């Protein structure tokens, strides 16, 4: 505080409340989950230390391996699918005409709905006896309309529901980013005789590079939290054919009351989440402490 450069600058104390709060309710649980992963605990009484038991079980848990595989499929398929839908629509919506603005208003309603509301809505739509699925199923070659009752279809059906929920968000990202591309680039391309397709691939897509990365990373992180919709719609079933990793963890902990083993699964989730977090900060330059969005 003595030097003039420090005058009027806030001290570290200003950041302490937020840090303390975050530490208490986010960092401490993260540390605890690692400790709990070496214990056995049913949710009642006290956890007791069991060494590597949970981890040897993890290595031999077929459902765990299956859940990893399902999570990987869910992540990759929904990432590619959502990007292929959201990018062109986002670019299209960015053009400013009144009709587009009106149309795009409906696009965004799913963004406002909670996952449980979406799961309930789709639960009624996918009901093989009375829902829309009963009518639409035969058109799509699923005669009984039982999209979520078939092990081979359930994951892809869930991906459709998840896309319904999240594509609007990514449309929004692409729309905002497209509007920031300097108009002069498009004009230059047009003078050179570029058509729409050429313009899209040679200018729009390269200019959206960072947004594509951000959106992709968000989708991949999102795959780790695709949980509530699946819990309500299928509870992991039929069998274990939609039991992705977070759901496997939840059901182990709060349905079978193997909280220690659930913690070991949570550590796996945590590791994946941290790796992705680090990717985000590297790729988007948040860590370089530069302004990301001027004059929002």
């Amino acid at each position, binding site marked *: 505080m003595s030097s003039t450069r420090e005058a*009027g600058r806030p001290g570290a104390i200003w950041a302490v*409340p937020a840090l303390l709060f975050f530490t208490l309710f986010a960092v401490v649980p993260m540390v605890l989950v690692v400790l709990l992963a070496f214990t056995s605990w049913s949710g009642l009484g006290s956890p007791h230390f069991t060494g590597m038991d949970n981890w040897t079980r993890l290595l031999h848990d077929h459902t765990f391996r299956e859940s990893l595989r399902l999570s990987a499929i869910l992540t990759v398929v929904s990432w590619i699918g959502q990007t292929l839908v959201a990018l062109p629509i986002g670019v299209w919506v960015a053009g400013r005409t009144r009709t587009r603005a009106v149309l795009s208003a409906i696009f965004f309603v799913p963004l406002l709905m909670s996952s449980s509301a979406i799961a309930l809505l789709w639960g009624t739509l996918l009901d093989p006896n009375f829902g829309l699925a009963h009518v639409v199923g035969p058109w799509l070659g699923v005669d009984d309309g039982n999209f979520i009752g078939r092990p081979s279809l359930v994951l892809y059906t869930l991906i459709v529901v998840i896309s319904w929920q999240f594509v609007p968000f990514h449309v929004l990202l692409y729309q905002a980013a497209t509007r920031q591309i300097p108009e002069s680039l498009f004009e230059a391309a047009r*003078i050179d005789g570029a058509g729409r397709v050429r313009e899209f691939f040679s200018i729009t897509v390269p200019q959206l590079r960072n947004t594509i990365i951000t959106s992709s990373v968000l989708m991949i992180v999102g795959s780790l939290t695709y949980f509530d919709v699946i819990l309500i719609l299928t509870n992991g079933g039929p069998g274990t054919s939609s039991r992705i990793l977070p759901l496997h963890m939840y059901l182990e902990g709060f349905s079978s009351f193997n909280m220690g083993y659930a913690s070991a699964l949570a550590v796996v989730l945590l590791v994946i989440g941290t790796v992705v977090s680090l990717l985000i900060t590297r790729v988007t330059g948040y860590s370089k402490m530069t302004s990301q969005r001027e004059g929002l």
Partner: protein
Amino acid sequence: MTTTMTGRPSVTATEATRIARPRRTRRSWRMPNFLGGFGALLWLVFVGFPLYLLLSTSLRDEGSYLTDGPMSLPRDPGLENYRLVLDSDFLHYMANTAIVTVASVAIVEVLTVPAAYAIVRSRSRLVRFGFSTMLAGLAIPAQAVIVPLYLMATRLHVYDTLLAIILPTAAFALPLSIIVLTSTMRDIPGELYEAMSIDGASPARVLRELVLPLSRPGMVTIGIYSALGAWNGFLFPLVLTQSSSSKVLTLGLWDFQTQYGTDVPATTAAVTLSLLPVLVLYLLGRRHLLNGLTAGFGK
């Protein structure tokens, strides 16, 4: 706000006219973007049709839904299902959700403002270290910590209270909120800070008179973002509460499904009602809301 660029000219020189006489790209015919429009239209139907079914189903009675099928028009539409839902604990759940939302937003704002201010202006190493910790926490899935949170909630005797939901909900909204508000505050020109400190202003006065007024858009954004997160939160209530008295709307909805069984119209009425408050907000401040949702991910 985004700069008001004039709409991108949707026309350009066709190949032929370009060769005939090269000219500036003004007002010549250009094929409309049929492909983009068609894709968007398809998605609009895909999004809109389920929403239409949601609304139309909620207005009909159970019998006609089962006999006439989901696509048919309601024979004599009425609000009977809504009355059924409102007669249940729905409003109580909604009140709980409102409490959780308001409290979470308040905690987030109160903690984020001074923290972001310190991150932007402080030279302290502790602050920098704290900031990178928060960044590392950005994508930690909440699922990963539900077991320890359950343990902590039972040990601290807050299990099955709204407080148990509020605390972790606010904590997990902090990293993104701090990022968003930090970038808003970075856009305040350094000279303004200098000018105030030359006048001998204390950090508190700088915050009050300079930073707060200029970072209002960022504060609105993080408010919206954390409000939506709290309003729609599912996981924390699921594992940290149990009884009906502390039940929030998202869990209550799930209950309705089991409670009403095959009464699909009642379920859809409950879903529609749960959407209503957010929808009203959306219609009032669409731009703010949409900006809030993508905040921090721009560029």
